[in-house]
């Protein structure tokens, strides 16, 4: 009997195959758009959080009325709660193909460099222009999977980096601090400002996370802009289902005449809707996942962040299942609810009214 139920519901769809196919494709496209934007926003946020989690708890920069000043690299930070301090050398300099982010790294030999995928070089030679000009040999590259963080990064020996950034020997760009209780890093800021002999700007990880996520949020805010048309499209599909059902009152009246209860008519319509919406949504979800985390990801990322060479998509998949689950529910539930409601409402009429409907 279960097979007959499925046959009935499936054949109902095949009575108007092109119409069913169009509705199915619309549901797939709607799902792909909503799930894709959700995955992108969630992936960017998770990636940003993961990157920041590996960083220091507090970053301290020396400030002056006209900007930032270098800090002594050997400066000790005698504040209770600070467990480690590390001087960092970094800044932005020009390369042949545009600005790059420079970082000092003890593991890179003098005259050599390690670069990100977005840094253009010729013959493994990189020309950098800062306070001085310097030509370095490219001896290593960051993995493509880290491109979201290392795309424009150039890692040099600290002395080379200092020369390019105009820092003197023993000077650094900022101080990275690790503390005993990261959750209470905010409470250490007044002590830090008091312990250092010059004005500083101290930023906790939470604050940096806020800034990073705001940037991500700004890029992903079009997700919200997409939800409205997506909802309207879903309502239009539901209205189509309503019109379809109303146009087939005779069928509903016939089923009543053959002994079907209103609940059974509703069940058939829900089954029919599920047969259409479930494969459509599954396809849409797969499409969205492929576009953000799979082979199609580079295209999407390239469209959102047009860089040359293109930025490799390697977003975190944390929370992707939740996004996909919510999206599926967002599409499936209203659609099925509309179909069920229309079938239930039409069951209030006497079957003879439905049978004699034009």
């Amino acid at each position, binding site marked *: *009997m279960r097979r007959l139920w499925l046959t*009935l519901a499936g*054949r109902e769809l095949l*009575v108007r195959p092109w119409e069913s196919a169009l509705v199915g494709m619309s549901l797939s496209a709607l799902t792909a758009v909503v799930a894709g934007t959700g995955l992108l926003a969630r992936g960017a946020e998770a990636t940003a959080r993961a990157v920041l989690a590996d960083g220091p708890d507090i970053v301290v920069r020396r400030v002056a009325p006209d900007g930032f000043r270098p800090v002594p690299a050997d400066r000790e930070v005698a504040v209770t709660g600070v467990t480690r301090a590390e001087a960092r050398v970094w800044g932005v300099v020009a390369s042949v193909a545009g600005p790059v982010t420079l970082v000092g790294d003890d593991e890179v030999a003098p005259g050599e460099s390690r670069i990100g995928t977005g840094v253009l070089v010729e013959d493994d030679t990189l020309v950098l222009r800062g306070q001085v000009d310097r030509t370095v040999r490219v001896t290593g590259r960051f993995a493509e999977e880290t491109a979201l963080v290392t795309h424009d990064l150039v890692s040099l020996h600290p002395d080379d980096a200092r020369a390019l950034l105009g820092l003197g020997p023993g000077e650094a760009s900022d101080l990275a601090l690790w503390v005993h209780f990261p959750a209470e890093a905010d409470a250490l800021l007044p002590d830090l400002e008091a312990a250092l002999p010059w004005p500083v700007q101290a930023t906790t990880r939470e604050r940096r996370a806020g800034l990073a996520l705001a940037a991500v949020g700004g890029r992903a805010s079009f997700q919200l802009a997409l939800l409205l048309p997506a909802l309207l499209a879903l309502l239009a599909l539901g209205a189509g289902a309503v019109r379809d059902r109303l146009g087939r009152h*005779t069928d509903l009246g016939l089923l*009543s*005449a053959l*002994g079907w209860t209103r609940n059974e008519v509703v069940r058939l319509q829900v089954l029919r809707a599920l047969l259409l919406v479930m494969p459509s949504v599954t396809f849409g979800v797969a499409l969205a996942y492929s576009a953000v985390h799979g082979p199609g990801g580079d295209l999407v990322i390239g469209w959102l962040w047009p860089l040359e060479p293109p930025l490799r998509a390697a977003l975190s998949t944390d929370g992707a299942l939740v996004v996909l689950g919510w999206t599926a529910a967002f599409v499936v539930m209203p659609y099925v609810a509309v179909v069920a409601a229309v079938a239930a409402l039409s*069951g209030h009429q006497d079957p003879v009214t439905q049978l004699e409907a034009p």
Partner: protein
Amino acid sequence: MTLRCCDVDYAPPGTTRTILSGVDVAFAPGTLSVVTGPTGAGKTTLLYLLAGLARPTRGEVRFGGAAVSRMTQRHREQYRRRVGILFQTPRFFSGLSVSENVALPLVVRPEIDSWETTVAGALERCGCRDLDERRPNQLSVGQRQRVGLARALVATPEVLLADEPSAHQDETANLVARLHEERDRGAVVVVTSHDPRLIDGLGIDARFRLDAGALEPW
């Protein structure tokens, strides 16, 4: 159980045009009754009322001790399961085969294990076993009526209502045999017809004439 109309009037919803007026009649189980009358006299409407597909504007339709026309929706739905109806122009689901269309009354009866066997039996009895794989649009009008009869009989109804069942049939022997079968097993059988071939050969237990909305024994 006896199916009874008690002083029934009927006007379609939203109109004041009375189609049936003061209809008072009883159809006993194990009897075959014919309602005849001119086209537009209200024969089909009477069957709809007896089937619980419409509600009278006055009076009531009773089956046994229960007033069908006053039942809650759920109880009326349960009542309709006990009724098999053959429409004058049987309607089918165009996407389903003949056997699937005939199976529709069984789909909602989980107590029936093998719908294929039951449907095949009903089609066989109605002389249309060979049509089981066809689609409704591949049937002639006469074949549609025979398939419609099989669908009306397939769930072994307590009440069988047939609206002009011989209208498009070249021969009525099989139809008469089926109606007798249903009557003999104890069903209430009500047939509307103005086909003399059927009326004369049917072996009728009760005959009524419906004219201008009024029903009289004939």
